[in-house]
């Protein structure tokens, strides 16, 4: 066998198909990948250290920027963690709107994944289809609290303000035609022979490897693990909605695609149910001295003004203790482990980022594949670098 020199290549931080500033040093033997060692940290922003100097309610925008694709699920997990620490429960209406925001951001994130993944595999059109849908969802996010990408709409104990009046009609219009849009994507990709050749049997992650390497979310469900935190440990009223969890046993890039497309349909089903169920009522729990009083009460009642003032100046003083709460983010099990020492600032916030853990299996999945398949595998993991590097 002639001895072949292996070529080392930088799939560097500035690369069109690394979905941000991810770097992998790839050892190539001709066109076959011998070994891909990831180098992370190019977007490390010191999130956990910065949280230790912020008040509890100031951490929410920071948490949302941790995963700018599904921003609302980040603020949801942080708010649920602090509420569990305080022993507070958000009112019924706030819980339903939170589910609405979480499912919208799941569709939001899966859309961007599908567009860029198809672009990496060579199909150019899905990218423009999905950006059209994302603009519609961004219009919806604008209606909630003004932000297009990161609405920053959730607060500890509920929401910051009630829904805009045009929101429900526009959401109903969106859910009406969204199913046809997903059919359009399926027409483009699912039965496309080139796409199937490029993705079937590529990037195999067996069920045992997936569990051992801590893969969660669509990565795990594509390897046959029937586990969705919305079903196994329901939070924020998820037990009241009926939706099914798509599970594939193909363990490859194609089954991850199928799982995510099916999840978009299920998220739409949940959105329709939230629209039917939307109860009236307050949008924030009322616990004086701990949760911000409603906006209109501040102008009329004296104690609300004092509570508001004390909360803003001195911040929230939760009981001493530690809590771990996790939710099903678009990428997997997103957890926040919060320790409080009674002071106004979190003593320690450990952020369990699913993209960071799913990325560990890149080395094992990409051994012996073609270099072009390495790009397809990397995009099938659906990494968001702000979450990977925190």
């Amino acid at each position: 066998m002639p001895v072949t020199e292996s070529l080392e290549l930088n799939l560097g931080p500035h690369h069109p198909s690394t979905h941000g500033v991810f770097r992998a040093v790839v050892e190539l033997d001709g066109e076959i990948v011998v070994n891909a060692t990831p180098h992370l940290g190019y977007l490390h922003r010191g999130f956990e250290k910065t949280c230790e100097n912020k008040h509890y309610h100031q951490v929410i925008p920071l948490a949302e920027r941790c995963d700018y694709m599904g921003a609302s699920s980040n603020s949801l997990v942080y708010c649920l963690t602090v509420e569990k620490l305080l022993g507070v429960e958000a009112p019924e209406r706030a819980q339903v709107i939170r589910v609405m925001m979480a499912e919208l951001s799941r569709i939001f994130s899966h859309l961007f994944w599908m567009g860029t993944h198809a672009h990496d595999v060579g199909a150019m059109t899905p990218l423009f289809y999905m950006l059209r849908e994302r603009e519609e969802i961004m219009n919806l996010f604008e209606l909630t609290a003004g932000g297009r990408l990161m609405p920053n709409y959730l607060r500890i104990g509920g929401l910051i303000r009630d829904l805009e009046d045009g929101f429900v009609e526009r959401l109903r219009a969106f859910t009406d035609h969204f199913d046809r849009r997903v059919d359009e994507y399926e027409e483009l990709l699912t039965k496309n022979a080139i796409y199937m050749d490029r993705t079937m049997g590529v990037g195999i992650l067996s069920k045992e490897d997936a569990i051992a390497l801590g893969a969660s979310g669509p990565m795990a469900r594509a390897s046959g693990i029937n586990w969705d935190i919305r079903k196994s440990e329901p939070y924020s009223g998820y037990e009241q909605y009926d939706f099914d969890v798509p599970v594939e046993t193909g363990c490859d890039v194609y089954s991850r695609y199928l799982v995510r497309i099916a999840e978009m349909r299920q998220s739409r089903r949940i959105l329709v149910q939230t629209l039917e169920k939307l109860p009236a009522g307050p949008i924030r729990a009322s616990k004086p001295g701990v949760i911000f009083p409603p906006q209109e009460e501040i102008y009329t009642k004296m104690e609300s003004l004092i509570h508001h003032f004390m909360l803003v100046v001195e911040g929230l003083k939760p009981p001493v203790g530690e809590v771990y709460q996790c939710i099903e983010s678009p990428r997997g099990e997103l957890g926040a482990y919060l320790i409080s020492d009674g002071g106004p600032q979190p003593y320690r916030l450990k952020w369990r980022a699913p993209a960071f853990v799913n990325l560990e299996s890149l080395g094992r999945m990409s051994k012996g594949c073609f270099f072009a398949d390495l790009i397809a595998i990397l995009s099938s993991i659906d990494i968001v670098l702000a979450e990977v590097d925190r």
Partner: protein
Amino acid sequence: MGIERHLNDTVHVTNLEWLVNWSRKSSMWPLGFGLACCALEMIATFVSRYDLARFGMEVARPSPRHADLMIVSGTASKKMLPAILRIYEQMAEPKWVIAMGACACTGGIYKNYAVVQGIDRHLPVDVYIPGCPPRPEALMDGILQLHAKVMKEQSLHNPPIPKIRSAG
């Protein structure tokens, strides 16, 4: 440019300069350089709804050799800084830099050990765009300001090329 050495100021070159500036302004190719959340708003600006192609900027090449404008969109972390400087150096003159978003302008909400507190500490920035992330309209407004700035440049009188600490 090199030509005015031959003209040695006998002929006034405004019209030629206007032509040079106008051609540079109307086909300024941005570098596809997304760091963090602002990159998503930059992508939304490139694509059909906000459409940067009307300003001649639809070609967002990843390689610095084909780019004239570097939009630093997102947080410049200290580990990424050498790469940013390297890419800026490898772009061909004339080149411009837009600091998009609060993180690129001043470090934004990440005032800590890991983030460069403003990319203008290391790069000559032409236009700063506030916002976290700035709306696509804000990015387009920043680009139009840059176009106005390019039109006013004396590109034919050999303006000094800004030197940066090379990341070589």
